[in-house]
Structures are given as structure tokens and as C-alpha cells.
């Protein structure tokens, strides 16, 4: 029986690795997730015979199993329903939330192992590490969720001495870890401090940087799970946790690289706080839908730059209609996808794919940037920071150095925007004040459907 159990765990890990491999290619990604899901199901089910064999002498055995199954069902139902019900645009914060839950679970294992574990001292050290990392990931992810959800505002929150406070907290945590391992009565204080630290780490992060930070917390949860695995001597947890820790770390760097930022800069740079002078005496020029439609209908080439506003307005089907309408008139339509458009890398691709816009029409930053100068119109739909020229010419700007889409090179720039406010990073956008830029204020879906109607009349 022991071989069957161990073998099943082995198979589960194999399926995880295979699933992860498939997850890194668009055509097989969904199958990859399903395969990892099968592995997970095996691993969870085989755990029941394992605990039966090990603990059936326990007088509380039946009670514990009943409570356990109840908790699994409760967590599953809540997890399933909330994941299925939230709108697609809120997916990023759901990833943060569920990651936080995993971090919390990893922290709980560490907590109980320190409290109860009959293992040797070195195993308790590992349990303490799992407790620290898991708990930071727990509260940090919840902070990220609250920020992306807009419940505590997605602007960075900073105060003097913030980094010093965090450093002191970290030091205190390490000292308390040491004390706790000698005297168990410090355990609760030792648990609370990482909770505070995780939250404090998230506070100064601006909304635009949040995906990278969520990815970092994701890698941390993986690592915490691996340490738990060491503490309870379970190879399945060690291998799966380490794989997630490593791939999550790599992914964090890849995401930061796509934004031309470094991890330290994101964590300690407090980008996104409102900087720069007061609004100058400049106006954004508006254009009527009819005028804009005429320019679009008679253009040779239109490049559409989608951003978060498109996702927020659920306007992906309208943009497809606009594309069809323009193409039926012989206008060449291309989509320029900035790596961090929307709130997550790949956000726009997923959204446009849903509206059946072919992959071939989506172009990366490097592929499309030369083409803006040959475009008659750059149509910006709810994007802001990713087309802000300040990233190229204002060394004081917090987004300076981030590669942008050179929409300003197009002959005309039309901007569909909800209001006159600033973008996610909280900075003003020069592009909107250029002579060739015209604004179409309103909800992206409304404006686009009016545009489509107007174009039909030409």
C-alpha cells in the first residue's frame, strides 16, 4: 500500500511538471492546466488512505476527517463560485487572492509544526522559514487584492521612514524566530509580525506594478510550501513548491523586464505616486464621433492601441466590429499590444482573442513601433501610460525608461478615454495635448459603437 501511495504522489508531480510545460505554449496551455488538475486530484485523494494508515488509532480520527472534508468542500465551493463569477477583468486580483490563501495555508503548517512538531531542531528552523514567507505572502497578497479591487485605493501609500520600518520589522521577525525556537511562548507574536510586514510591503506599490508583485508573492508561496515539505518531510511538497518557487521567480523577472523595471525598483521605488507640477494651462481637444469616423473610414492604415479602458468597458466585441467595418472598406487594421497593457501581461491578447480577433493582427511593441509613422490614425482605446512620451523624454518621470508604443508618430492620434483623469501610474500624459491628438471622451464601448454606426454611413 505504501508503494501505491508514494507512486501516486510521484505520478502527481510528474503531471505537474508536464502540465507546466504545456502551459508555456498558447495552443496547449489549457490542456496543461487540466493535466496538472488531474495530478492534483490524484494527490489529494491518495492523501486519505495515507492519513488513514497513519492516524486511525487517534480517538479523534473520525471527527477530524469529518471536519477536514467539510473544510475542503467549503473551500472548494467558495473558490469555484468566486472564480467563475467575477468578471474577466478582475482575474488578476483573484490570482492574488487565491495565492494569498495558499500562503496562509503554508504559514499554518509552519505554525503547527513549530507548536507540535516532534521533529529535530533543523526541521523547526525550516518550519519557521515557511511560517515567515507564507504569512508575508498571505497578507501581502490580500493587500494586493484590496488595492486592485480599489477598496483601499490603487495609489501608492508612502510615509517617511517606510523602508526603515520594514527593515526593523524584518530584523525583529528574525530575532523572534530565534526566540520562538527556544521558547514557544513567543510563537503568536512571531506570527503576527510577518502579517504586518506583508501588508506594509504592498502599500507603496502602484497599481501598474502590482502584477509583478503578485508574481513575486506567488513564487514566495511556492518556496514556503517547499520549506513546509522539508519540515514535514514530504517530497511532493518539496518538489512542487520548489518548482513553483523557481518558475515564479523567473516569471517575476520576465514580467519586470517587459516593463523595463528592476524588482528592487518596483519594491522600493514607490512608482506611481503623483509627481510633477500642477496641471498646466493646456486643453485636450475633443472631436465629434462623425469627424473621427470620417477620418477612420478614409484612412489607409489604422493602428489600434488597446488598454485597460477596453477591458473595463468590456468593449472587445465592439472593437472587432470596428475592425470588420474598416477592413470591408479596405483599411488596413493592426493592433499594437504593449507587454503590460491592461493590468497584466497578456491581458489584451486574452481579451481580443475572446472577440475572435485573429492572432496575426496583434503585434508586439518591437514589431509595430516602426509602423506608426506610416499609419494615418493611431486609435488609443483606454490606454494611457503605455503611450506616454514622458517615458522617453522626461528623466524625472517615474516611468522614464519604460519602452512605449510610439503612437505619437502617427499622422493623427484619436484617444478614447473615460475622463480627463490621469492613468494608472498617476502621471500626466503629454500625448493628449499634441496638436494632432483628438479626444473622444466616454465609455469605450459606447464610443466604439457610435463610431461603428457613423462609419457605416460613409
Amino acid at each position, binding site marked *: 500500500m505504501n508503494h501505491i501511495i508514494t507512486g501516486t504522489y510521484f505520478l502527481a508531480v510528474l503531471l505537474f511538471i508536464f502540465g507546466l510545460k504545456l502551459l508555456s505554449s498558447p495552443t496547449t496551455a489549457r490542456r496543461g492546466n487540466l493535466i496538472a488538475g488531474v495530478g492534483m486530484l490524484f494527490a489529494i485523494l491518495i492523501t486519505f488512505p495515507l492519513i488513514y494508515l497513519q492516524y486511525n488509532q487517534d480517538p479523534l480520527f473520525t471527527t477530524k476527517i469529518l471536519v477536514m472534508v467539510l473544510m475542503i468542500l467549503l473551500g472548494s465551493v467558495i473558490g469555484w463560485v468566486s472564480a467563475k463569477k467575477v468578471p474577466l477583468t478582475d482575474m488578476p486580483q483573484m490570482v492574488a487572492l487565491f495565492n494569498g490563501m495558499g500562503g496562509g495555508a503554508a504559514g499554518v503548517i509552519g505554525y503547527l509544526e513549530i507548536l507540535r512538531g516532534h521533529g529535530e531542531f533543523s526541521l523547526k528552523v525550516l518550519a519557521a522559514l515557511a511560517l515567515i514567507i507564507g504569512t508575508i505572502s498571505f497578507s501581502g497578497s490580500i493587500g494586493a487584492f484590496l488595492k486592485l479591487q480599489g477598496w483601499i485605493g490603487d495609489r501608492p501609500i508612502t510615509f517617511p521612514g517606510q523602508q526603515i520600518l520594514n527593515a526593523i520589522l524584518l530584523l525583529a521577525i528574525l530575532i523572534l524566530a530565534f526566540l520562538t525556537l527556544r521558547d514557544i511562548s513567543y510563537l503568536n507574536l512571531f506570527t503576527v509580525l510577518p502579517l504586518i510586514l506583508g501588508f506594509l510591503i504592498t502599500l507603496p506599490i502602484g497599481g501598474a506594478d502590482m502584477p509583478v508583485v503578485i508574481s513575486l508573492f506567488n513564487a514566495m508561496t511556492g518556496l514556503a510550501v517547499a520549506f513546509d515539505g522539508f519540515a514535514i518531510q514530504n517530497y511532493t511538497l*518539496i518538489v512542487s513548491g520548489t518548482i513553483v518557487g523557481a518558475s515564479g521567480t523567473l516569471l517575476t523577472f520576465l514580467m519586470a523586464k517587459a516593463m523595463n523595471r528592476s524588482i528592487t525598483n518596483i519594491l522600493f521605488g514607490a512608482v506611481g505616486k503623483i509627481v510633477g507640477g500642477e496641471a498646466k494651462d493646456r486643453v485636450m481637444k475633443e472631436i465629434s464621433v462623425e469627424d473621427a469616423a470620417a477620418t477612420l473610414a478614409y484612412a489607409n492604415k489604422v493602428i489600434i492601441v488597446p488598454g485597460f479602458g477596453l477591458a473595463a468597458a468590456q468593449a472587445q466585441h465592439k472593437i472587432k466590429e470596428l475592425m470588420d467595418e474598416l477592413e470591408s472598406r479596405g483599411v488596413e487594421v493592426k493592433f499594437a499590444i504593449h507587454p503590460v497593457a491592461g493590468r497584466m501581461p497578456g491581458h489584451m491578447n486574452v481579451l481580443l482573442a*475572446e472577440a475572435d480577433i485573429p492572432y496575426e493582427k496583434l503585434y508586439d511593441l518591437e514589431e509595430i513601433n516602426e509602423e506608426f509613422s506610416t499609419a494615418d490614425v493611431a486609435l488609443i482605446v483606454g490606454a494611457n501610460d503605455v503611450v506616454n512620451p514622458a517615458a522617453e523624454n522626461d528623466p524625472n518621470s517615474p516611468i522614464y525608461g519604460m519602452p512605449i508604443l510610439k503612437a505619437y508618430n502617427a499622422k493623427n492620434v484619436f484617444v478614447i478615454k473615460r475622463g480627463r483623469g490621469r492613468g494608472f501610474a498617476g502621471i500626466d500624459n503629454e500625448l493628449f495635448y499634441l496638436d494632432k491628438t483628438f479626444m473622444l471622451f466616454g465609455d469605450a464601448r459606447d464610443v466604439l459603437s457610435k463610431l461603428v454606426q457613423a462609419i457605416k454611413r460613409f
Partner: protein
Amino acid sequence: MNEVWIALYIFMLSAFTGFEVISRVPVILHTPLMSGTNFIHGIVLVGSMIVMMNAQTPFEVVVGAFGVFLGALNVVGGFAVTDRMLEMFKGRKK
């Protein structure tokens, strides 16, 4: 002592596997992949289940049960979110 070394070897090889297996991921899959790895560390549920059985006092059972609840949320929510993201890619095989 021997077991510690075996565990370290496993740790090292797993870390390499994690790096290698996703090293060529296109940008459009960054978010779904993050979500997918988020699902995989839901394996923490298995650890929570074992640790809960190990609990001795009512307090420990309650804490353990809380861990199991969090782990189940991670597993099921992580899977469902990833699947929803990837639904968008269906039928677009080339």
C-alpha cells in the same frame, strides 16, 4: 545526514526544472502561467491535511482546519481562474 543531502539534491533539481520548463514562455502567457503555478502550489492542501491529523489539542485542530480551508481555496480557485483565462485560447490552434 544522508536524507538531508537527498532532500537538497531534490531541491536543486526541482529548482532547475522550474526554471527550464517555462524559460521560453511568450509574453501573452505570463498571466495564465502565473495563475497556473499559483494552482500548482495548491499542493499545500496535502500538507495541511497531514498536519491537521497531527493536531493534539482542540486549538490545533481548529488552526489545522483553517489551513485545510485555505488550501482548498487555493487549489480550486487557482484551477478555475486559470481555466477561465485559458478558455480564450480554445479553437485557435494553428
